[in-house]
């Protein structure tokens, strides 16, 4: 092609570019046009290539025309981009919406805080290799007390204020006072080894008010295997504490008494508020009492037909509401059961 042919092509292309850019319907199309008129496969690129084949004298003229073409098309593209970005009002003004308005569709609801805590703990113990077992809330006296080494005339009975129900003989059927009857059910249903946690509702003879509730939730763990030691119990509580509350949180045990464990202990964890330095929440001790634990009493093993000389094990348990109250600073247990959505939606 001659120099004049090339210049004519550029002129024609410039007209096409002008028309196409003004007609562009979207920002994406503008960018597409940028590639079409200025890109590698564009007429401009082709002209630039052909300049090399022209006489030396013709080259400056075509070069100048090419520069003018590029400048003009770039200006058009830029103008279109800017117009789209904001300027030019009338047409867009009527189409503009406030994209920052809240999105449509149902707002996500909330799991109850107790459920959230329960799931976190279940998942944590599943990670340790445990299974999760559940069972009835109305139980026999045998499963709730007798098999757990709490005979009828035993001072330890007074540790639980029990609600009985009108079924069977008097005081034969009750609302379970702890999740421990699940220990009995699980051990009666399977041979060792056992690695389970047992969450669930428990009951006691109290009326609902700020500090008391006839109902609460517990989670309890049970491990039975060969050679399980008190050190395994302490190590498990420690591992759970660190996994749940975070690094730097520890557990300590102190002697206590439960009829179904021997030795028995209460366990405390590093105060989550002062990290152990002492504050009002932990009565300056640096520790918060969380629950009870111990080595499974041989009488419990005997009750379910396990040989206490062959198997040993431990159990531990604590209240979910109490856990949540400590962790989130909730003062009144009643809060959990009023179902005020202003409470539910905080978690």
């Amino acid at each position, binding site marked *: 092609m001659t120099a004049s042919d090339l210049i004519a092509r550029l002129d024609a292309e410039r007209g096409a570019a002008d028309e196409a850019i003004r007609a562009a319907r979207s920002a994406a199309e503008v960018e597409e046009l940028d590639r079409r008129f200025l890109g590698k496969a564009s007429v401009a690129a082709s002209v630039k290539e052909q300049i090399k084949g022209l006489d030396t004298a013709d080259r400056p003229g075509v070069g100048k025309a090419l520069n003018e073409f590029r400048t003009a098309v770039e200006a058009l593209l830029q103008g279109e981009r800017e117009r789209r970005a904001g300027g030019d009002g009338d047409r867009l003004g009527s189409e503009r919406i406030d994209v920052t308005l809240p999105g*449509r569709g*149902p*707002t*996500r*609801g*909330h*799991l*109850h805080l107790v*459920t959230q805590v329960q799931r976190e703990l*279940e998942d944590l113990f*599943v*990670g*340790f*290799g445990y*299974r999760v077992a559940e069972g*009835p*809330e*109305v*139980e026999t006296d045998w499963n709730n007390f007798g098999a757990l080494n709490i005979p009828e*005339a035993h*001072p330890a009975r007074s540790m639980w204020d029990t*609600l*009985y*129900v*009108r*079924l*069977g003989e008097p*005081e034969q*059927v009750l609302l379970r006072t702890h999740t421990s009857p699940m220990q009995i059910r699980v051990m009666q249903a399977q041979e060792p080894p056992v*690695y389970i946690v047992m969450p669930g*509702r428990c*009951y006691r*003879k*109290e*009326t*609902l008010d700020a500090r008391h509730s*006839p*109902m609460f939730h517990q989670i309890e763990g049970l491990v039975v295997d060969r*050679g399980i*030691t*008190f*050190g*395994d119990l*302490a*190590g498990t509580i420690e591992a759970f504490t660190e996994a749940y509350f975070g690094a730097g949180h520890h557990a300590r045990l*102190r*002697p*206590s*008494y439960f009829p179904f464990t*021997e*030795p028995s*202990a209460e366990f405390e964890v590093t105060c989550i508020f002062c990290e152990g330095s002492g504050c009002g929440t932990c009565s300056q001790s640096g520790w918060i009492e969380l629950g009870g634990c111990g080595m499974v009493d*041989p009488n419990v093993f005997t009750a379910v037909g396990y040989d206490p000389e062959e198997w*040993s094990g431990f159990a531990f348990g604590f209240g979910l509401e109490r856990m949540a109250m400590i962790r989130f600073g909730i003062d009144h247990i009643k809060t959990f*059961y*009023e*179902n*005020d959505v*202003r409470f*539910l939606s905080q978690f």
Partner: protein
Amino acid sequence: MRVPLSWIREFAPVEAAPSAVADALNEIGLIVDAIEAPGRDIGGVVVARVLEVVDHPDADKLTLVDVDFGQGQSRVVCGARNLAPGDVVPYAPPGATLPGGLKLERRKIRGQESDGMLCSAAELGLGDDHTGILHLGPSAPLGGDVREVLGLDDVVFELDITPNRPDAMSVVGVARDLAAKLAVPFTVPVPATPAGDGTSAPAEVEVVDAVRCPRYVAMTGSVAVGESPTWLANRLTLAGLRPISNVVDVTNYVLLERGQPLHAFDQGLLGGGGIRVRVAEDGERITTLDGVERELTREDLLICDAADAPQAIAGVMGGATSEVHSATARVLLESAYFAPEGILRTSKRLGLRTESSARFERGVDPNGVLTAADRAWELLAETAGGTADGPGVDAYPEPIGPARITLRTDRVNHLLGTTLTRDEIATHLRAIELDTGVVGNDLDVAVPTFRPDLEREVDLVEEVARLHGYNRFPRSLPRPTTQVGALTPQQVARRRVCDALVGRGLSEAMTLSLVSPSDLSKAGLPAVGIEVENPLRVEESLLRTALLPGLLRSVAFNASHGLPSVSLFEVGHVFLAPTGDDLLPDEREHLAAALSGAAGAEVHGEERPVDTHDVVGVLEAIAAALDLEAFTLQPATRPGLHPARCAAVYVEDREVGAVGEVDPEVVARIELPLPVVAFELDLGWCLTATKRVRRFAEPSRYPASTIDLAFSVPADVPARAVRGTLMAAADPLAEAVELFDVFRSDALGAGQVSLAFRLRFRAPDRTLTDSEVGEIRQACIAAVERTHGATLRG
């Protein structure tokens, strides 16, 4: 149990700081609930003697009291009436401080200048006795600091003693454990048994029921009843008991110190001056020290006099007739060991728990009975001019010896994860007075009778652990080798359901499982259910038979707090009557949901009242989350739901619940916001229901044909049924059939409804021709008209 540190020190030279003592107590399981230093906030309160008491000129209830406090005299206005010249009392002059931060100032009371105040026990932080000014012993030095006089410079540990440790319900028992933990000497002085002069015959004691009363010591003597000396009264006050008289105070002192309850009878008031121990007759009555007449049964053990008249409920409370009083000259002091179970039953049945019964029911030391009586007479001699007649009567036909338990060293280490040697174990046990003999590598342990909780080898393992220190064991994390951790499929499915509901905007509620009959009847349900035998109040007297009553109450709670539009669900157990011969209830896991008020209220845009279709949508989300194979609704009438806006929910032809608008009558009764729509399902069953089989079907690459069909249908025909007919008629080419419009109008006529469907057809292997689509269209129309009595609308 409140234990003053000074008292512990009489048996063990504990020099550690109070906080270190508390740590040690906690580490051995004698849990410290509080450390009290009662004198900490008292400053400048001194001993004063009352000189004169005159009436306040302008106030009936006030007096003016002149006192001498050693360094001078003052006049104070006083509201108490228990003062006479010569009384020695605590005096807080201006500038003195009292517990609670009160600082005394000189001020006028009803026109009379009061130069400070005289203090009651409560005002000094000693218990809650406000009734009068505290009287100090006559020997208290005038001007002396009351903290020293009252022993308020002491530290008191408030201990929470677990029910297995009767021995630790005494100062001696606490001191024994603490001494072992702190490795300091422990010695309990042994009191001498009174010799007497041999002139008085011992009291007659007949134990009829030696099973219930294995040991009974009666030691008589003469006393002079009066006030206790200050040191004795102070000890009791610090330990939380109120001083009464020297004789009664001594029995309480021994109870606290040794853990052995004692009872002092006025011997002159005992028929025949002796004792007969027997079980009560059914219906026999006795008036106890608290003035209450109580009816007894053959379960109860009685202490009678020699004339067989009841004088005390054994181990629980003394009787009123032979109570020690100010003129008592001779007492019969009872120290006994009663079988624990009997005391527990009596105390529980009478609802009467005393310091005495709390110890007997856990088991006192049968071999400490005589020592306690000796100790009491030692103290009576010191504080009440007491003289025992002699060694008294000791009815102990079958002495109880120490239990012997073999403790295997391997067993200790096996359970604790330790490598303790036999001798290290023995050292721990000997520190708490357990004798150990050696049998090979194991120990033969003699358990003294003050530790009735130590019955088995494992109980000794706990003692070793306790004394070794619970936090000194090497810790390890056991993991199962025969299972992997996982939730069950049902547990996973339940979570999926709850998550789907949360995604739909519902929040999870938890309501009480205990309800009242009216909760059920208000919700339109039968007011019957499994009854709680011993409810505290009617509101918690039934086990719930459904979740909705509680959930509706939660809706009402929110509405009453200005939040009428809520979406709540609950997952929980309901309790139905046992089936067949079952003892336990038919307990099921239910899921209920309730939506109230306005839908879409939370976003800009259309707001409208919630309706049944909203809650059906939630139900469908559950079916989708569970991937249910067969989930259908059938119009039905169910209690608590609007009769014309209700459907039964079926999964695999089994009715699993109901959905609909809450009956307007229920809404009115519970004062709910309008409208409320709800459902309740047997979730437990749904979790185990058959899932849809999931197989891949290749999506067709050919174009679809879409047609719309509107029918006029009798209004009682469910749209779901019409849709099913269309799906069947167009099978297998129907890719989608969607109901997009429903309306009624006069033009349609009463009892008719217009249902408009959009049908999308597509073949897997070809483009459908116009004529094919026309044929399918005709087949669909014909099927709906034939099956449902419908007509195609133009």
